[in-house]
């Protein structure tokens, strides 16, 4: 690090020692310590990629692209096709997003545009409580309370109503299980709502007041103002927030492991049991060895890569849109 710029403001003035450019040892040491701590982030990220990839080469090289994306998962016969898990991860995350995004954006608008500021704070606390409830508690509640209830009082009625109808029947028809893609989707939606809400709120809060006043001055109602002034400003940033929520939903493990039903199937029936990548890792890892373990770690690598890409994109979008507005 360039010691010249660092030394200047910290110059030792007035002491008996001459005005040298040398800095005391402690000062230097502290800077190095701080730098090392910062670099740790990069080191860990690189190490995650390297060490997990290393432990899964067995699977990647043996199964090949075709094997990895096959639906055949049978540890007994050494077949490790991850398709059913990838499918389950995508389906549950998409359900979560479809449910969570409208709710989160609506709450974010409520907090920024409707509710007076002194009320906004307690509402934020309440939403944050959702994020503090541990994932395993959502899972526990999901499997012992929510799943049985929703199966008997919602799914079974819908399923019998839509059975036989072309598109709806193949999505919501039987078989019906409490632990299913859809139940997992709902629980994931609840879990990602706080982060999507808070990021959307951050983005929406950067809409300049004069833009809003411009709409109001034309006689717009609040909703018309939101559509005309807030939305054009925020849509990119909200897309970023949604992507971050998607990343969270894809990686969420324990709640999904408990409520998804743990059966490696690819089906369009959303009320049927399924599986997801993190869930299968959590459930099967303790008993796995050899190529089986390599396959599970390999799925971790896929998950890592996926979430990193989604997060990079999302953070980039959010950062760019908030900075552009602040700068404007």
């Amino acid at each position, binding site marked *: 690090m360039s010691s010249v710029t660092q030394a200047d403001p910290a110059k030792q003035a007035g002491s008996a020692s001459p005005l040298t450019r040398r800095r005391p040892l402690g000062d230097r040491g*502290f800077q190095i310590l701080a730098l090392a701590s910062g670099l740790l982030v990069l080191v860990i990220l690189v190490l995650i990629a390297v060490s997990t990839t290393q432990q899964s080469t067995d699977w990647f090289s043996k199964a090949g692209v075709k094997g990895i994306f096959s639906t055949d998962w049978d540890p007994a016969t050494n077949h490790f096709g991850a398709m059913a898990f990838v499918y389950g991860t995508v389906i549950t995350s998409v359900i979560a997003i479809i449910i969570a995004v409208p709710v989160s954006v609506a709450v974010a608008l409520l907090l920024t545009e409707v509710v007076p500021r002194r009320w906004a704070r307690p509402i934020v606390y309440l939403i944050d409580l959702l994020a503090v409830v*541990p994932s395993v508690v959502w899972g526990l509640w999901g499997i012992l309370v929510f799943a049985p209830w929703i199966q008997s009082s919602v799914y079974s009625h819908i399923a019998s109503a839509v059975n036989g109808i072309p598109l709806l029947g193949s999505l919501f028809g039987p078989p019906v299980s409490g632990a299913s893609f859809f139940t997992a989707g709902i629980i994931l939606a609840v879990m990602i709502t706080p982060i999507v809400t808070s990021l959307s709120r951050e983005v929406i809060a950067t809409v300049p007041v004069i833009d809003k006043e411009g709409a109001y001055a034309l006689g717009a109602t609040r*909703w018309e103002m939101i559509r005309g002034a807030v939305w054009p400003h925020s849509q990119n940033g909200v897309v970023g927030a949604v992507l971050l929520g998607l990343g969270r939903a894809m990686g969420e493990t324990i709640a999904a492991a408990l409520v998804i039903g743990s059966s490696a199937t690819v089906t369009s029936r959303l009320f049927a049991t399924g599986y997801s990548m993190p869930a299968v890792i959590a459930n099967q890892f303790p008993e796995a060895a050899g190529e089986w373990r390599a396959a599970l770690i390999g799925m971790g690598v896929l998950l890592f890569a996926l979430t990193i890409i*989604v997060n990079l994109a999302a*953070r980039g979008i959010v950062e760019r849109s908030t900075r552009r507005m602040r700068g404007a």
Partner: protein
Amino acid sequence: MMAVATEQPAADLREPAGWRRTKNRVATVLMWVAFVCTLVPLGFVLVTVIAKGASAISWQFLTKGPIPPNVLPVTIGGMGPAVVGTLEITGFAALIAIPLGVLGAVYINEYGGNRALARLIGFMADVMTGVPSIVMGLFIFTIWVLHFGYSGLAGSFALGCLMLPVVIRSSYEMLRLVPDSLREASYAVGATKARVTVTVVLPAAIGGIVSGALLAIARAAGETAPLLFTILVVESTNTNLFSGPNTALATQIFINAQQPFTGAQQRAWGAALTLIAIAFILMLAARIVTARFTRYTR
């Protein structure tokens, strides 16, 4: 002046056409409905956990164990080892992650300036918060457990990796709020940068930093996935953090939830209540610290 009013027809300034007003009202109502939608699951979870968990909680329940899953009543014990494990593992994780996280934030804000490296680290810390917790577990498994075996320490490392970026982000936000005039005042009397940071900047931001760290601990205490492959869940108490398998409340709930026995499930509820209580107490503490010790706010 009332002549003005009689001279010309009065302007109609009532609410605009019905459908515009209706749309606006519907939109507002839907926003409130969305808010209620988020409260419903929260309310249900809390009520269920309290209703089912409260009957399990007793001094023995929190200190004694293990009890076979089919043995009732649950109040005779069960979560002792898990409580010890959670405190050990989360505590040590905090001990590693918080100083490193704060130092990392110090680098980004105090030394980084506008340097690309500092911005990269800040950005990647944000990205790192998005790494799934199970991947952190796999990471520590491959890099530590494979070589040194299962231990509470490995669990602490995994939780520490999850906490690190969170602490960096929250500390950075707090350091940014410390006004430059404070730093300059300290430089003006001849202090070195390290001294300014330690004696002036960090104390000025300490409220926010502590509160952010408490929230990070609250989140970490509830994590399950990173512990599954690092501590290898066992039933008995292990007070030695550094060697031998361990256990924790969160993992215990995960195991118990999958068992068919009433005893196991009831203990899971009791453990869930304990875990939520710990998380909420930490969150509350964070709020109190924020309210009482935060000097600079956005």
